[in-house]
């Protein structure tokens, strides 16, 4: 069984993270934005698990668990907001949320 260079794991995580970021920045549909956020969170989790494997220690995975919890809570709240927004504006376009300005 040959070894995997651990940078490769981290690079994969970085690529996934940047993909998620790209999604957040470009999409106008709020459901896609939320999904992209999930991708970014998941990429972070991946980085932690890779680190856990690198140091052969379980604490990285505990961090991953925390991120999982966070993601679950975030998705629940985010989806609730999406429903509310759809009710109020009848669209999923985040451009309608432009009240937050000086």
């Amino acid at each position, binding site marked *: 069984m040959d070894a995997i260079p651990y940078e490769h794991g981290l690079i994969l995580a970085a690529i996934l993270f940047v993909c998620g970021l790209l999604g957040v*920045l*470009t999409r106008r549909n709020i459901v896609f934005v939320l999904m992209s956020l999930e991708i970014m969170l998941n990429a972070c989790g991946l980085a932690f698990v890779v680190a856990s494997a690198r140091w052969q220690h379980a604490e990285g995975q505990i961090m991953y668990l925390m991120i999982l919890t966070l993601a679950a809570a975030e998705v629940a709240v985010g989806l609730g907001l999406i429903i509310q927004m759809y009710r109020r504006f009848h669209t999923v376009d985040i451009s309608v949320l432009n009240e*937050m300005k000086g």
Partner: protein
Amino acid sequence: MQEWTGLLPAFPLAGFVLLVLSRGRMPRGIAGVIGAGSVGLSFLLALTIAIGVLNNGGQAYTTVLWQWMQVGDFAPGFSFYVDGLTLVMILVISGVGFLIHLYATAYMADDPGFARFFSYMNLFVAAMLVLVLADNLLLLYLGWEGVGLCSYLLIGFWYDKPENGYAARKAFVVTRVGDTSMAIGLFLLFSQLGTLNIQQMLMLAPQQWSVGSGIAVAASALLLGGAVGKSAQLPLQTWLPDAMAGPTPISALIHAATMVTAGVYLIARTHVLFELAPSVQLLVAFIGLATLLMSGFTALTQTDIKRILAYSTISQIGYMFLALGVGAWSAAVFHLMTHAFFKALLFLAAGTVILSLHHEQDIFRMGAMRRRLPVSFWCFLVGSAALTALPFTSGFYSKDEILLAALGQEHYGMLLWTGGVLGAFLTALYSFRLVFVVFFGRDRHQGSSHGEDHAHAAVMEAMSPVMFFPLLLLGLLALGGGFIHVPVDTVFGAVHEEVHASQFLHALMILIPIFGVVIAWGVYGSASYQKAGEHLRERLLAAPIGRRAYRFWFSGWGMDALYQWLFVNPFMVLARLNRKDAVDQIYGWVAQAARVGNSVVVMLQTGNLRWYAISLVGGMVLVIGLGVWR
């Protein structure tokens, strides 16, 4: 009883709090009872304390209420010190104060600000008691400023008239000059002696400073500044005549009997410091002399009954300063007490006259009040006799002591004595001018119809035993107060040796006031000489020098105009020059820059969520980039 000393100022303070909390909705009866009753309780307590202390041989004691503050070595306590001097002061304040409160319940009965009036009065009594009870100068200063505040509030009591507000501000600002000097004196004393406790200070000062040393002179001169401001002596006396804008009971209590004598109390309390600075002490004597002469001349020309009494107050306090200046501490305190009696009496009697004439204060519009207000007349007569120091009245004994002590002064004895006697002559002249013009002669009041006026006066005489009881009691005190022994021998140490004056001088001191009364009668009183008197007055005023002197004296020796020219006008010019406030402009620019920057940054805030996200990421990339490629 000694452990209850703390309650002395607490009663009036509680009265003040109650009256303030009632916000003027309290029935007048209850407000009056609280206002007068709280001071009455203080008086009873003061009486029992005094009896206890005097039975104990006049032993002084200190009551520590609590530690006020503690900053390093500076730890003034909230504690009261009671000795003979304090006893005299608290008895005068609460006793005379109670009588005046009682009088005021009738005098102010129709005023819409009844409860407010009594709340200020109670606060004043509380502050004044703290002033005289304080065992350290900081607590004394608290009371000092407290009475100043109450004086301001009460002078401007009828605040809907602008000139009353102006008088209040003037009193506040002018006394503030003295208070600042006193505050600097306190700093100096603390930095030099390391304590503000009066008894410790009086003990330490003679050990550390030699007689006439610069520090002692500076400290006592600064304290003198405070005393001069509060007691309306030259050159800070200009506020007191204007302070008569307040209701008459205020003039009686604050601006005659108690507050204005605080300066005398301060100097008497710290007399050791003044003994260490003979030059300053001499200055005190000459300030007193100059003040009493100047205000005597001014009182001669005034036509407003309360202003005459105000100038007479200044002049009498001048006598007290004279006594302090020649080291006759107990004589000063004695005169302070008798003056409180007869001056309060005079003001209250004048108050009934003013009230019966619907707030008429010009004496030449009064006249023949003797028949209308017999009680007030007799009381006023007694007060004037005591003020003039006619034999066997209280003022006679106290002024006699002062003049004898002045005569005993080493270098300037004769000068001070002559000035004092001249002052006594002037006192007799102006006070009996007042008596004769107001209570004798024709009735010159042109108000409402005669019958109604008489009815009004009669009703007043009959209706207000509350007003006349204080008058009668004060009249008795003004007559017999000279026989009260002031228990201050233990306070001022060695009793001064008796000054033996010749029979001739004694006779002169008795006769000169009587001579003054006779002249006043000749010019203003007697019917047969009245024509001649008026003729003489006209002749005097017709002469250019006479007219000029009259105008000069009438304006209070031009002090107001001088200060207007010397301080007020330059200040106004400065204020006008700096109308736009140069310093504020700079801060204006800062605000302007912030506003412009804001409007620029606001443009970045589009409300577009993706724009925000991109900015966020841009910042993140920048920070990480800086971290990686340092």
